[in-house]
């Protein structure tokens, strides 16, 4: 009896306390939201850290600037998770009005037919798309129609720690390094530091796997990487891929390579190691630029283009990142609100701020003249490298993304293959297994969804 009283009273007190604190902290926000009947624009995004903070900032500013819409950003986990969440909630009250979806999901989003192409609003508003970087917007358009608005666009980039290079007397890397350039530098660092500093790492990340092929001008999937129709087969065992994987395995074997595994924790561990001077070279998304610049001493951060095969000109890499889509299951007023917010995000000053805060490339051409970016480039000249890489890339079928469904699955498979190769497995075997695995998946997937090339 006594015990029961105890429990009840303790639970009661906790509940009251929580309610009390909560409502005192949030009552203001609730009141203001109720007083004016704004149209709620639920915006799903997958940004973390500074990106998430910046998005919240944009939403707050947008909400302050006008009174018709209220943008509510909601973080929905990783890119991979978000795709299915979007597909699965479509048509319910839970679905977003506006959502961010990653580069390689474009094919799937288009096929799913759950969005209103932004082209509709571009046409309505006669919005000037020329201001937006062509390589970025091309990625998200089909047959001249803009499906979604590129938002956070990144380039795979090579970072190296200049302080470490200097300490061990290693020459800085060229802006457009070849596999051998990297291999040699990594070996030198490892040897000279007697293994205290590891030369290089390449995250086991499917995106890099794809970019090695893009940069070699090699298609990964048939139907011209899906630009000509539904791919039915992938090719992982081509010479370009084998070369890239052999290169990684060689560095692994000579001890200058360290593997941090795969996934988001590996990325953060890798960055921590890089910043603490225990790692010389790493591949990272240019989106890490903001974080790295904030942590590294000025002048210590080296940035180059994505590695190219020896003795071959680089074909250029596909962009990474994600674009913004407007769901077609919300009423037209809500869709319009979502578009208004997109437009707001694409304003030159906001894009400039976006690049500064995150490292994603500012997509509005006018952003380059914004004081924010000028200041950034003055302090960090290297911050320009990704934009330059993007700018010099001539779009072709192999470097404009792969329009194929099941890329999430493919990345899981290629990432495993990469880890097996790091662990010493025969490159051809690992790649062949991965290829077979994905091809059978793809065949089944196409069959199940009724895709065929007629």
């Amino acid at each position: 009896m006594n015990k029961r009283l105890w429990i009840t009273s303790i639970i009661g007190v906790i509940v009251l306390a929580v309610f009390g604190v909560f409502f005192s902290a949030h009552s203001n926000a609730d009141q203001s939201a109720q007083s004016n009947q704004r149209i709620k624009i639920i915006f799903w995004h997958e940004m973390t850290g500074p990106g998430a903070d910046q998005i919240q900032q944009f939403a707050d500013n947008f909400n302050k600037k006008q009174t018709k819409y209220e943008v509510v950003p909601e973080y929905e986990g990783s890119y991979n998770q978000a795709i299915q969440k979007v597909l699965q909630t479509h048509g319910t009250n839970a679905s977003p009005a506006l959502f961010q979806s990653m580069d390689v999901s474009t094919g799937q989003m288009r096929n799913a037919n759950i969005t209103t192409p932004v082209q509709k609003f571009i046409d309505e508003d006669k919005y000037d798309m020329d201001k937006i970087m062509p390589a970025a917007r091309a990625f998200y358009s089909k047959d001249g129609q803009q499906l979604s608005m590129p938002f956070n666009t990144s380039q795979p980039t090579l970072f190296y720690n200049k302080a470490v290079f200097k300490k061990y007397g290693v020459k800085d890397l060229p802006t457009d390094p070849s596999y051998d350039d990297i291999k040699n530098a990594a070996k030198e660092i490892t040897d000279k530091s007697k293994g205290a500093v590891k030369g290089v790492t390449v995250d086991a990340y499917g995106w890099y796997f794809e970019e090695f092929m893009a940069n070699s001008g090699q298609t990964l999937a048939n139907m011209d990487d899906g630009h000509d129709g539904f791919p039915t087969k992938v090719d992982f065992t081509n010479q370009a891929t084998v070369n890239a994987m052999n290169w990684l395995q060689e560095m692994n074997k000579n001890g200058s390579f360290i593997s941090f595994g795969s996934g988001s924790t590996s990325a953060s561990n890798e960055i921590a190691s890089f910043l603490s001077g225990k790692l010389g070279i790493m591949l990272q998304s240019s989106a890490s630029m903001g974080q790295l610049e904030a942590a590294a001493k000025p002048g210590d951060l080296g940035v180059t283009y994505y590695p190219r095969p020896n003795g071959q000109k680089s074909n250029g890499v596909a962009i990474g990142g994600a674009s913004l889509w407007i769901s077609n299951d919300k009423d037209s007023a809500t869709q319009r609100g979502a578009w208004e917010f997109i437009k707001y995000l694409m304003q030159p000053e906001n894009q400039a701020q976006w690049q500064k805060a995150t490292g994603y490339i500012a997509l509005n051409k006018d952003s380059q003249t914004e004081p924010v970016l000028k200041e950034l480039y003055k302090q960090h000249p290297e911050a320009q490298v990704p934009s330059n890489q993007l700018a010099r890339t001539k779009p072709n079928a192999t470097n404009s993304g792969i329009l194929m469904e099941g890329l999430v699955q493919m990345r899981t498979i290629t990432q495993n293959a990469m880890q097996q190769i790091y662990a010493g497995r025969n490159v051809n075997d690992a790649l062949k297994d991965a290829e077979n695995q994905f091809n059978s998946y793809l065949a089944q997937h196409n069959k199940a969804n009724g895709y065929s090339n007629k």
Partner: protein
Amino acid sequence: MDIANSSQRIGKHKFKISNFLQYLLLIILALIVIGPFLLGLWTSFLPTSSITKGSLAGSLTFDNYVTAVQTTPVLRYLLNSFIVSIIRTVGEVLLCSMAAYAFVFLKFKGRNFIFYLFLATMMLPFEAEVIPNFMTVKSMNLLNTYSVMIIPFLTSAFGTFMLRQSFLQIPTDLKEESDVEGLSHFQFYWHVVLPYSKITLLTLAAYSFLSSWNEYLWPMLTTFSDQYRTVQAGLRQMQSTETFNNWGMIMASAVIVVIPTLIILFVGQHFFKSGLNDGSVK
């Protein structure tokens, strides 16, 4: 096994030493058990800058807690968890006790069959059914609401089974007497059966509350905004956005979240112990 006594037998002097050893052992075990928690508690008071440098020293502050409460929805998560868990607990105790009552005190055709049907559900893991269940709640338009986390769990075969065992202990005289006095089933259920089995009911309630509070997969799949996320889905959210940025704050949030369940556990510990054994083994 009573180690205390064995050592007490060994004269007075030795007794002290071995007593000391026993305490030492207990303390070591206790440290292992609460070590991760203590570490979390300690770091929650450290500035994140010291934590990321790998140092466990530094001036202790409440800053992390202030940040957690002010900049993250951790209190909202807590509130959501309370709402969901309390309603689920009440619902499960009520519906399970009603079902158990039917199995013990009502006579109707097919009773055994339905009971075995109930038992059979214990073999069907919820984890294996999330896909159709997701589609069901989607078609009911329940996604991203409290209801989606409550309705599917308002009853359970486990709870029904546990209460049925307890109701079977009620002397049949009582039922016969109440029949003679003309009590309806509802009256008997409410005035006799429930009070008679209150220890089991409380055990089930505590168990139900804790498992609801700890529910992870389902809230994660079915909630999409902080307005409805419970602590489990919420912490996952915070952890994946903030890991390398703010360990201190994450730890502070974890500590805030763990306190209510620890209190419930400590208070309810006693009948948990007996209730779990009775309900499960006997």
